[in-house]
């Protein structure tokens, strides 16, 4: 593990990704302690203030400190997106590996269902799920996880198909290994690199999807300091008071960038042949 980290920070993308990730991690863990104000306290005398020494990133229409809101919001926004992606990865990977390994008619049937699910845009899919489950942050997370599962399953299956033709799978088959061993110990470690890369890129999408759901009022509910919700609420004021939308926008973009960089670097690090 330490070895992987060492190799990760040796690469420029990995290093930048790791630095950005540490900043995000600090915000997630210590955010509420660092935050100068309570995220939900109204400062009536200073509504829509531009960034100043008192309010580093300015205030919103209710005079809430944007910097504090971002720090508080990091916890829910990033954690929920990560959990949503993790859920999609685990479920999708399981479906993909099993379907790819068994192959034949079983694979055909599973993949047609996956295709059907993928025909529905992610946003629409998660909207449907949230509508059924009710709108709150946890349900938004589950919705995103479900919406991403077919895509992850596709990726996992396609890598599985190329791995399962390799001779070590044939050797395991010839040895009489159980299906569980072959899928879990022979195939899965070899597809993990591709799946992790796909997963890290999807974290960025998950954040944006979560923001979109909150923006539409189906994820986190006001006055929660969720980044997507912040963008949504700031929309009316974006021309007069640009900072209200600028900071949460930047925060979302940074997280997306972080996970993209980490994903690229991890792909190289996790390939045993490159070190």
């Amino acid at each position, binding site marked *: 593990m330490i070895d992987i980290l060492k190799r990760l920070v040796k690469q420029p993308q990995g290093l930048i990704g790791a630095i950005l990730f540490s900043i995000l991690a600090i915000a997630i863990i210590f955010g509420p302690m660092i935050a100068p104000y309570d995220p939900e306290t109204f400062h009536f005398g200073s509504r829509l203030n531009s960034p100043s020494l008192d309010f580093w990133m300015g205030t919103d229409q209710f005079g809430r400190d944007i910097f504090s809101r971002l720090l508080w919001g990091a916890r829910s926004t990033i954690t929920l997106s990560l959990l949503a992606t993790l859920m999609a990865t685990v479920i999708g990977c399981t479906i993909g590996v099993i379907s790819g390994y068994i192959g034949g008619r079983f694979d055909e049937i599973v993949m047609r269902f996956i295709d059907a699910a993928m025909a529905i845009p992610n946003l629409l899919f998660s909207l449907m799920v949230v509508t059924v489950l009710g709108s709150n942050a946890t349900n938004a997370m589950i919705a995103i996880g479900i919406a991403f599962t077919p895509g992850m399953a596709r990726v996992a299956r396609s890598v599985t198909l190329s791995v399962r033709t*390799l*001779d*070590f799978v*044939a*050797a*395991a*088959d*010839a*040895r*009489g*290994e159980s299906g569980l061993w072959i899928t879990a*110990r*022979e195939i899965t*470690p*070899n597809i993990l690199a591709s799946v992790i890369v796909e997963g890290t890129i999807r974290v960025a999408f998950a954040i944006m999807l979560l923001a979109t759901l909150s923006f539409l009022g189906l994820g986190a509910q006001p006055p929660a300091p969720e980044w997507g919700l912040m963008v949504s609420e700031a929309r009316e004021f974006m021309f007069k008071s640009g900072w209200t939308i600028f900071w949460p926008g930047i925060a979302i973009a940074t997280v997306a960038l972080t996970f993209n960089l980490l994903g690229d670097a991890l792909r190289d690090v996790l390939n*045993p*042949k490159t070190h």
Partner: protein
Amino acid sequence: MTQANQSLLIDNFTLSYKTESGEFRVLENIDLGIARGEVVGLVGESGSGKSTIATAIMQAVQGKIATKSGEILLGDTDLSGLTSDQLNAIRGNRISMVFQDAGASLNPTLALGEHVIQVLRRHHSMNRVEAKNESIRLIEMVGLADPELMMTKYPHEVSGGEKQRLVIAMAFACDPNLILFDEPTSALDATTAKNILDLFRELQRKTGVAALFISHDLGTVAEIAHRVAVIYAGHIVEIAKTADLFHQPRHPYTRSLLASLPNPMSQDNAHNLLSLAGSLPPRDAPLLGCVFAERCPFVESKCREGSIVIHDDEGEIESHRTACIKWNEALALPLTETVAVTKTVPSEGDQQQILEVVNLSVRIGKHTFIDRLFGKPPKMIHAVSNVSFSIHSGETLGLVGESGCGKSSLARALTALRDFEGEIKLEGQSFKSPADINKLYRSKLQIIFQNPDFSLNPRQKISTILSRPLKLYENISGADLQGAIDNLLEQVNLPVEYKNRYPHQLSGGEKQRIAIARALAAKPSIIICDEITAGLDASVQASIVNLLDVIQRERGIAYLFITHDLNLLSHIANRVAVMYLGQIVELRKAHDINTPPYHPYTEALLSSAPILDPDVEVRRIRLEGAIPSRIGDFKGCPFESRCPRRQGDICSSDDPTGKELSTEHKIWCHIDQDSLMRMPPIWKI
């Protein structure tokens, strides 16, 4: 060396790359001249830098270059001083190149004719009509039938041999001064490769073009080259006329390379093949003295001092040059004490039949839904049809045939990786379908695959890889498991510490040893070796073959040794089965492979095998055409469409019956016994 008469002159050329760990020496002090009309062979192991010489001549070296010095002269032109425009005018025009993989050097979206037309228009500024006519002439020249039709075909529609012929047509299109061949026949089947070599020899004689012929295969080079240069770790260690090099090799490396190759002509198959210990020297550290010193059996302290003076026989270009300071003294000494191996063929009495295969067939393909809907018959490929043979304990049965003959499908059927029809009997127990195959069968019959890069899971440590068969078949666990793994590693002569490594941290030969150890872990009575030395260098191949030999003598394991290399087969096998188009056409003893009678296909295969000794006269038999399709049932002899000794309609209408010509010699052919017996041998000294 004089420049007159030289087509190409490489003078003191040195190349090194910048890497993280310092300067990586690729080529050092290369001196090589190719006279007009001369073919120079360049032989070396993988990683010796032989292909880099070709890229250096083409001025196409990629990567971070640390140093590059010396001259490369094409006639009077110094190639290294040219601009890229000037180079483009030379490449494909005055120098052309033929690569190993013809499929990759042709554009799949262009018709074959278009490739040649483009070369001609680019360099000879011909108009389309002229270029087209010239292309037809060229395509005809390289022996492709029906050139006009060939012009319109696309690369995927023709065979590998035909593609390589087209690439040769492109190479000859502009009457080049020099052609560089980089392993042009390595990817082809022996019989096809032989045709390509014949073609090149004939064209070379006609046009008088000079050529550099790069190969890892000494036998191929021996056939085609006038002179041969041997390269080791970026140094040319010896250059001599072909016959001199093979009869009086001087450099210890050349001598060991020759000794590591199986030679069916020597009656000396009772000896082990020579395999050198060690590997190529590190190339990022400065070199003192001889590059071969670490592995040389004659090394002395003076070999490690200063630079090595190249011994040059007095005289002109064609002298015998040797980069060794004591070749003269060393020549009198034997390379190693060769260990005599007495091939223990079990006598009739204690021959215990391990495996018997009865009428085994493998059919690949399925009846698709669409086909059934339209009432079409299923497209089934008959990979193996009605094959029967048996293997005794302690015996090696060699299975030889060209790619696509079904030998791998047979191996996969035997390991229950493929569906099969027919019967397999293992130690008396009968198995009639893959569903019958049980754990005991799987442990008794093991398989080793061709490429250990794919057959060992890159994400598992060696200890995990070796522990699986132990856990599955022997129920070993805990402390005993570690001991058993150590024991396995010792049996394949690998250090015990390797168990904590990953496969990619091992060399190719070491990886294959792990695969052998994994097979041994199951305590098998028979191991199927599917082309297990195909990707390895000669010396590594020799060590693997010797290891298999030791294991067989110690444990009496039988091998089914699948290969396309007849020379190797005659060294390792007791009996040989020759396979063509999914059928066994001949079963014979291995030691008398040069004694007729043969099946006509065996005859052609033998005639195509590269022979190390340039003095051996090989009776010339060439096959036309490609292996026919195996979809659907066919009648008659599988070899009927290409057979040079075709008897008539009987060959395509009746299945040949096996003729028992002597004990353990069976031929499936319609030719009558007397005519078969009158066949002359293939090799004459």
